């Protein structure tokens, strides 16, 4: 067997795969139920996966329900995602010991066990690809991120049951996945039984499948996959028309809609922190009682006033300017900066906004009234 091959795994084989990954030295994580949500957690076997669990999502709302079926992946993304595994909320980078007349720098080592994710969704794998552009392909490589990513094994499960907040189809990042995985699974359940179509995407996956009982996939399994994906697309109710959107947003920086959304927006930052591609951080030097200095990196958000603080004050002092920064970065200037979208359509920012502000609705409102402005001063990017 080689990379590109496809096999069929039964649920028992998936269990063997999880054991095998752990024998190979991986810390195996996947979707688990905690505190009324599907979140990332440790997997010791198939029994930890959210069997028969389904979700209901809407703007500012998320609920799970337990059914009596035995499907493991009939749900869409929950709040946490995989970003924290590669870009943790709090990191200590180095320590400086200040002695008599000299400073000694001590690196704080970062030695996580290689991570195996079993059950990332297509949009989440796409989001890791977007983060790679930021942390790996950019001018400043983040060595910790690079190491975590290079050592990680990612098994993606394609989506059968998008939530009402999902719009990956518009962003070409789901419900299917074609690149950017070690193993791509599709959960199938028809006359041929409950099983997974598994496509091998890397040499690492070949090693992981050693000793796992499987049969080669047939055309029947592929048409079953097509049916699952077609059903998922049909059920996707949220859409974003991305055609020309980057330009429309860039030339509507003075659109009255920004002020309207700012009346509702709490500037709480939830949308940015649940977003699988938001990468902003603060770097600060703390001191301790021994006089040592510790350089810390923590998540930050463009919704915090401090985030745009330059000498003398914040560049974005109003909620209006901060919401505009968030949305235009995700959907417009990200293209200029990283040559890709900053949004993979996972819908998290819609579901986890405490007042249900919907990115797709806000973007559509600006498109609908493209050029409507109450301009009192020329927009800085009016040439676009």
């Amino acid at each position, binding site marked *: 067997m080689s990379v590109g091959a496809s096999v069929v795994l039964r649920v028992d084989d998936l269990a063997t795969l999880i054991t095998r990954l752990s024998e190979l030295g991986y810390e195996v994580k996947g979707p688990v139920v905690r505190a*009324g949500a599907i979140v990332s957690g440790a997997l010791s076997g198939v029994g930890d996966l959210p069997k028969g669990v389904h979700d209901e999502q809407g703007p500012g*709302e*998320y*609920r799970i329900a337990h059914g009596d079926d035995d499907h493991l992946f009939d749900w869409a993304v929950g709040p946490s995602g995989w970003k924290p595994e590669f870009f943790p909320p709090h990191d200590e980078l180095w320590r400086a010991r200040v002695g008599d007349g000299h400073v000694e720098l001590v690196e704080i080592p970062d030695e996580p066990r290689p991570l195996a994710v079993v059950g990332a969704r297509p949009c989440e794998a796409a989001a890791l690809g977007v983060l790679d552009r930021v942390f790996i392909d950019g001018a400043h490589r983040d060595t910790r991120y690079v190491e975590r990513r290079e050592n990680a094994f990612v098994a993606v499960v394609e989506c059968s049951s998008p939530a009402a907040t999902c719009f990956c189809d518009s962003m070409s990042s789901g419900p299917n996945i074609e690149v950017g995985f070690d193993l791509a699974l599709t959960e199938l359940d028809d006359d041929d039984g409950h099983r997974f179509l598994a496509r091998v995407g890397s040499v690492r996956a070949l090693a992981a499948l050693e000793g796992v009982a499987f049969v080669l996939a047939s055309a029947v399994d592929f048409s079953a996959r097509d049916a699952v994906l077609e059903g998922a697309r049909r059920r996707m109710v949220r859409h974003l028309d991305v055609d020309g959107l980057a330009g429309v947003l860039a030339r509507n920086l003075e659109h009255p809609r920004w002020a309207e959304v700012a009346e509702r927006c*709490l500037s709480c*930052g*939830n949308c940015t922190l649940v977003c699988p591609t938001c990468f902003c951080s603060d770097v*600060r030097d703390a001191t301790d009682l021994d006089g040592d200095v510790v350089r810390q990196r*923590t998540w930050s958000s463009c919704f915090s*006033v401090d985030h745009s603080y330059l000498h003398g004050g914040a560049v974005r002092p109003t909620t209006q300017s901060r919401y505009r920064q968030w949305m235009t970065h995700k959907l417009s200037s990200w293209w200029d900066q990283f040559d890709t979208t900053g949004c993979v359509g996972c819908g998290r920012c819609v579901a986890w906004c405490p007042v249900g502000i919907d990115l797709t609705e806000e973007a559509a409102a600006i498109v609908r009234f493209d050029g409507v402005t109450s301009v009192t001063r020329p927009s800085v990017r009016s040439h676009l």
Partner: protein
Amino acid sequence: MSADTPVARPTLAVWKFASCDGCQLSLLDLEPELLAITRAVQIAHFTEMTRAHVEGPYDVSLVEGSITTEADVARILEVREQSRYLITIGACAATGGVQALRNFVEPGTYPAMVYAHPEYLRALDTSTPVSAHVVVDYELRGCPIDRFQLLEVILALLSHRRPIVATHSVCQECKARGTVCLAVSGESACLGPVTRAGCNALCPSVGRGCFGCFGPSEGANVGSLMQWLRSHGHADVTLARLLQTFNAAAPAFREVATNLVATKVTLVAQPLMRKERS
């Protein structure tokens, strides 16, 4: 600094006004760090810890509590005069505390409900923050404050740097620690989106919505959150009570709470039990 070179340590004094002492006790709660702190600063006045008293002036004064009597008004001026840095600790000192509920009702309403002989009381009609009386150099929020933030402020003073104290929402701390949002998952109403971080999202982490004890976050849009909660079945009176606790008099909370309820007196009087005494 090495142990055998005597270095003049900065002096630190702790002062109490109308408060419960919980915030100043946070200094004692720093058990593992306490000895190192007393080596780094000289505790000049701190009655929860020692009877020893060193005369001012002081490098740093920590001020707990709100201003509720004529004597307080005079004493806070004295503390200010004696202190290089005046740092307030806690919700009482920052916004007037829970006792600022009296600001919303006719003077004397609560004493009449609580005391058999209210005429013996000598208190002002209002409970006001320290900043209403003197210039405050730094405010630590919370009811009580977070002891690690207190340590951070002391460390920042010792190394002449800006303290690392966030002004954004509690939500950002929930997200950093991986707490599933109680509001979105339908568990509970939560003031976190409009409340300043600092507690490491303590209440949401144990399944209770944020009570707002750190007061409003920067630019808190309280009205929008309340409108959302109303449209999701929360009664006005419940929401107003949520806002009228530890930081009832903080302008961002007060304004919205008073708009939520027509009759302010009924609202704040309801949860109190009338004491029967003879």
